[in-house]
């Protein structure tokens, strides 16, 4: 069973911790990222509210921290996320989890 990354984008503050922890874990060069935050907004909505969302998107360099998993650690982005808005598990587990509330997305970077 493949593994998945669940992002609750209601709570992603866009703080870059996932990007930087991944860069350090993978020792990536300047300009390279294993996960990158995509931002939509801030944009005013018709009802006076604002649309403003961040989603950390795994890149092709993401292997869900295979080496860390091997030693019994969680992926570095999930581990360090200050907003606790990322979860990791099997696709099956995350599929159940994702339905528990809105504004969530699952990524399956590798199968």
């Amino acid at each position, binding site marked *: 069973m493949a593994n998945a990354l669940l992002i609750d984008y*209601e*709570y992603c*503050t*866009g*703080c*870059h*911790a996932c*990007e*930087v*922890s991944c*860069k*350090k*874990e993978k020792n990536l060069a*300047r*300009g390279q990222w294993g996960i990158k935050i995509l931002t939509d*907004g*801030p*944009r*005013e909505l018709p009802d006076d509210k*604002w649309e*403003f969302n*961040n989603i950390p998107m795994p890149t092709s360099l993401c292997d869900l921290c295979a080496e860390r*998993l*091997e*030693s*019994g*650690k*969680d992926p*570095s982005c999930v*581990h*360090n*996320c*200050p*907003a*606790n*808005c990322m979860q*990791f*598990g*099997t696709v099956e*587990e995350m599929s159940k989890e994702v339905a528990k509330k809105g504004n969530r997305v699952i990524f399956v970077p590798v199968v």
Partner: protein
Amino acid sequence: MAEKDYFAEHRGQFQWEDGDYTVTRTTVWSGPGCHDGCGVLYYTKDGKLEKVEGDPDCAYNQGTLCMRCLEMPEVVNNPRRPSKPLKRAGERGEDKWDEITWDEAYDIIEAKVREIWRDYAPESIACMIGTGRANCWQIPYMCYSAFGSPNFCLGFLSGESCFQPRSAAMASMSGDFFIADCSQQFESRYDEENTEWRCPELIINWGCNAVESNSDNFYGGWIVDCMQRGSKMITVDPSLTWLASRSEIWLRLRPGTDGALAMAMLNVMIKEDIYDHDFVEKWCYGFDELAERVKEWTPARAAEICWVDEADIVAAARMYAGAKNAAMQWGLPIDQAVMGIPTAQALNALWALTGNIDNPGGNIVIRNAFDQNVSYNYGYNNLPAEVQAKRIGAEYPLMSKAGFSSTAHSDSILQAIETGKPYPIRMLWLTSTNPIANMASDAPRVYRALKTLDFVVVNDLFLTPTAVAFADLFLPAAMSPERDMQRVWWVPLRGMKKVCQYGECKSDDTIVTEIGKRLHPENFPWNNDQEWTDNILRTETPGYDGGYHELVERDIWVYPGFQYYKHEKGLLRADGQPGFSTPSGRIELWNTVFSLWGYDPLPDWAEPSNSPYSSPELYEKYPFVLTTGARHIEFFHSEHRQPELTSRELYPDPCFEMSPKSAADLDIKEGDWCWLENHRGRCRQKLRINPTLDDRVVRADHGWWFPEKDAAEPSLYGVFDSNINNLLPQCENGVTGYGAPYKNQLCKVYKCTEENSKEMPSICVSTKDGYSKAMDESNGDVKVGAIYNG
């Protein structure tokens, strides 16, 4: 998930081997980095720091970590770091240095100090630090107990306006300090079963973007944790922060009007009779006087002042008063206004009127773990009373005499350097502070003043513009993973274990001890950092049962017990009676101590001196309200500017923000370099369009310098080119000495062209004595516009 759980296997261990790595479980404290003190796992190999991650066992950050600690190896191993003491070889500002030994450096320092003692007096030496650093007791201790001077303060921070006004207001009004309750005082976090903590129904982010700033020992992630547990939010901020986007109500106030908004919320609560009668009757003093004062502060009046909808002010007051429990997390804009103290009084009154005082999920009374009060006044009692009385700024009792985070008054020290009154300041010691890039609100003025000193020591992580411009001696400072020490700010008590060494860098503790032993050995009975830490733990930390080794290897962090409603239980007053530690035993909405000192005992608000309403003639020329200093997660003040850092990769240039309409009106586009200018001076930053701003507001970055540019003058790492503090005044403070208008100025904006960029600010300041300069004898401030005319 994998069946193996690495972190569970190592639970309780402080150090272990992991392949080629040694892993150490400890905590951090700035620098580099912020005021928090998160639990970390350091991965070192062959004595070098290679990786940092959040410690899942530490209740403070619960395994998480922000990008500044995650990139720490880039800072610690940065090739630009000086590794030996440096003695100035050329003129100040030429960036010519000789490497010397520590003993040679100490010889020079000792000789200079004795010279000042002989030719002037000990108080002619001033010592300054950056905000919230690990050195917040070492450098004060050296100032008082080695140099014998009462003149310690932060690095030309005008009006001491970073948390100190808020803490002085809290302490004088309520006898204690209050923080928003996100369960951080319990090792068992967010635990409604085993602790009395309850999630706040409402969190008010008042001028604090905690998820970027992590300010004042408050980790921003805690707010998100509470949101996930049901907290609703109100945000008070001129810009739509991420937290504002998640808020029920966003109050987009005009910068500098926080006090007016708070007064109007008090007005609504009293007028609509929705305040907590029970709490006010039992525990507050001066309610009638407060009610009378806020009567005129109608929401309609505040709406006009604050540029906020009247209905939103009323809704916010109702929501706050109606919440079962509500916590307010407040920030720097309170301090960074001339009306800082009265504004803090108004916000304290809001907590009191809603009964959110030491209740679960409200604003709790917090003291340092194990009553350890080793801070800005550590060692002050080693000074004779007659020397204490000479502290510069002694005429401000709330600041210098009352003991509320008391320090000397930075602005008055600047004036003493300039005028020799009340006596000359001839030597300056700066540790981990870079005033001309950061704290000094009138950077060109401070630049000119510091050039006149006899002797300047700069002790920092890197050669900064401040070091190059002024230092006669530069001492390279150890960083967090290179120090053995302890730290308390509220809770927990934390230990720090040294895991690496860079060149010959030394910790603040070591430097202070080695200098202290030469000048006043009787005050320095310890021989190294571990022994000093031991001394603090065993003599200044009652109730903790260990020393250095127990803290660092056995405990790492320790949470003391915590009780709510301490005022009801007789736990706050020295006499053991119920109530608060104030003269009346109550929260003093009408402040008795202020009244004795001749200050207004009630909260209030007044226009900033430079504003659309108080200086319409200036507003006509400078048609934007300028706010500065909003935090970015990539930086801690002027730190993290080295071009090798991921911080600079993510945030390469200084930016200012304005609305799309205002940018279009000025025909400027996203990414354009523009001049921000007013009657004091100008600087250039890049435009970032912010669709959430009021068209009349501009927000500008602070703290910028460019380590990749020339160090030598006139460049000084380009420190004045993008320095928003070319546009700000110094020595404009509240009547208490506290507060300064960093966040409420005026400016105009125009695009940089080749024609108008011929004379860059760095050249103007460092070669032509440029920008606001002449003194106005009537108020001791710089004469507005005397030199700079665009």
